[in-house]
């Protein structure tokens, strides 16, 4: 992937848009998986122009786990959608794997997990996981193999033949994670995937996710409302505030890669959590 990036990609870059013609300082071939530079998003609303994001810059290195946290309206989901090419910035520049988000999307180089599992109710669990593999045109045997592997990775081999309505909320969200993993992306974008789950299920899935992240050397960008979840999973927590949506602080989580739930009882964990809480209370004070 790194070998392709600088030279051959530069040709179509000029074709694309105004954004491309900016000085390529941050787009330089360093190891950022995602780089966001001075991005703003605004759109007209009933009360004039709404600033969803203003002057947001962020670099995400390979293997990082970044959590975006903040009050509603701070633009954390918008930022994730920009990276996924599901929304477009009003100004500023984004790079994903050294190219535009659009190139990353057409290369299918990320997996996206939505807030709702968004499973197709007429498909069984395994057939839901096979959906992206059908889209990219893999052979049936290869689909079957890869989907079975992805389901095994989230511990759902048993449930392969069940329909979504036969699965609990936590299992549904695991299927949707397996579906995102089935394309074997290096980058996982997750929009509050565990927001609707109870605490115990959430803990279990957090453990699952941190293991997947470590074992597969994934880069993850994760939107959440939960401070303990963010601190437990992340290498860095990005605290955001609203009106306009912006990054207020970035907090390091200097824990070892291998994480167990015990981590949450350590002094270091509580200190970092407090730091995030302080950053957020400033953000919420703005409201």
């Amino acid at each position, binding site marked *: 992937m790194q070998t392709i990036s600088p030279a051959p990609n530069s040709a179509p870059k000029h074709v694309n848009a105004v954004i491309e013609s900016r000085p390529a300082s941050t787009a330089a071939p360093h190891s950022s998986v995602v780089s966001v530079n001075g991005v703003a998003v605004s759109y007209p609303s009933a009360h004039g122009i709404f600033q969803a994001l203003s002057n947001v810059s962020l670099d995400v290195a390979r293997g990082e786990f970044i959590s975006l946290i903040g009050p509603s309206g701070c633009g954390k989901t918008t930022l994730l959608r920009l990276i996924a090419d*599901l929304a477009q910035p009003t100004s500023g520049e984004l790079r994903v794997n050294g190219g535009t988000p659009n190139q990353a999307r057409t290369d299918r180089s990320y997996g996206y997990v939505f807030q709702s599992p968004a499973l197709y109710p007429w498909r069984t669990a395994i057939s839901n996981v096979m959906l992206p593999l059908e889209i990219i045109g893999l052979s049936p045997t290869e689909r079957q193999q890869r989907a079975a592997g992805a389901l095994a990775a989230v511990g759902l081999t048993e449930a392969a033949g069940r329909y979504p309505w036969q699965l609990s909320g936590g299992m549904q969200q695991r299927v949707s994670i397996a579906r995102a993993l089935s394309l074997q992306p290096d980058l996982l974008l997750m929009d509050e995937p565990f927001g609707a789950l109870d605490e115990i299920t959430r803990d279990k899935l957090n453990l699952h996710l941190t293991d997947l992240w470590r074992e597969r050397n994934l880069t993850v960008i994760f939107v959440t409302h939960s401070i303990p979840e963010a601190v437990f999973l992340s290498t860095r927590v990005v605290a955001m505030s609203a009106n306009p949506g912006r990054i207020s602080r970035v907090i390091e989580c200097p824990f070892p890669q291998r994480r167990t739930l015990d981590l949450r009882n350590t002094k270091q964990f509580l200190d970092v959590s407090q730091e995030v809480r302080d950053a957020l209370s400033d953000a919420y004070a703005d409201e």
Partner: protein
Amino acid sequence: MNNVMTFRHTVPGWLRQAASIAVILCIVLAIWSVAATLANPAPSDPEPGWLPANWWNDRPILPSPPQVAVATWNGLFGYPVSSPRSLIFHAGVTLEAALAGFALATIIGIALATAIVHSRLLDKGLLPWVIVSQSIPVLATAPMIVVVLGNAGFTGLLPKAVISASLAFFPVTIGMCKGLRAAGSAQIELLHTYNASGSQIFRKLRWPAAIPYLFPALKVAMALAITGAIVGELPTGAQAGLGARLLIASYNGLMLLMWATLVVASLTAGLSVGVLTLIERALPRFRASQ
């Protein structure tokens, strides 16, 4: 309370449904019987029997329930199926046109809905016409369709099928417009993240998501297709079909034949819709996520 609970829990659902249908049927029959007793003059030579004598009037104004039952039975089974007096024969003729019209309506309805869902222009420009088309009485359009198609050399089945389809395409179009838009935004965006093509989005998501909307629409369409085929037989001067039968009954004041024909028309519609219900149930897997 306790009794209600045990009734609910021990009597299977189909039996409870059958019971409620039977209750409604009894009420209708009771009202009908009273009306028949009041409406009909007594026959000149009353036959002895335990039922009111004017229930067996030869030329009734309002035929009584048993009279209609006997006439329907005779119409269905009193003659060989190939006989022009057999209502099975006529129902077959009508059903043939209705099924052709139903097939046409399904294709047109799905095609229109697909076009409307994919184009804002058609959504704004075509849908109003589809709705307006249903405010024109089919009795007015039917002769026009017969004349136009007749001049083009089409007679018999096709004009009837077209008239039938002109009624039946409407619920399919509306149902599928709703169905093809039923997919959630996350379900659609998911496919965008895979860079899926428009046709993949249609095949993998919009179409399967629309199936639960398709069958209710098809059932309404089937009933309308049969109505349309019957109406289509009226201006065509058809010799056969339930519509032709109704016309003959109406010209000759044969109220019994008229009622029997209408009963057979309802039975035909009921059976056709029933077949669709069975097909829907045979499709194994669909259940909306709760």
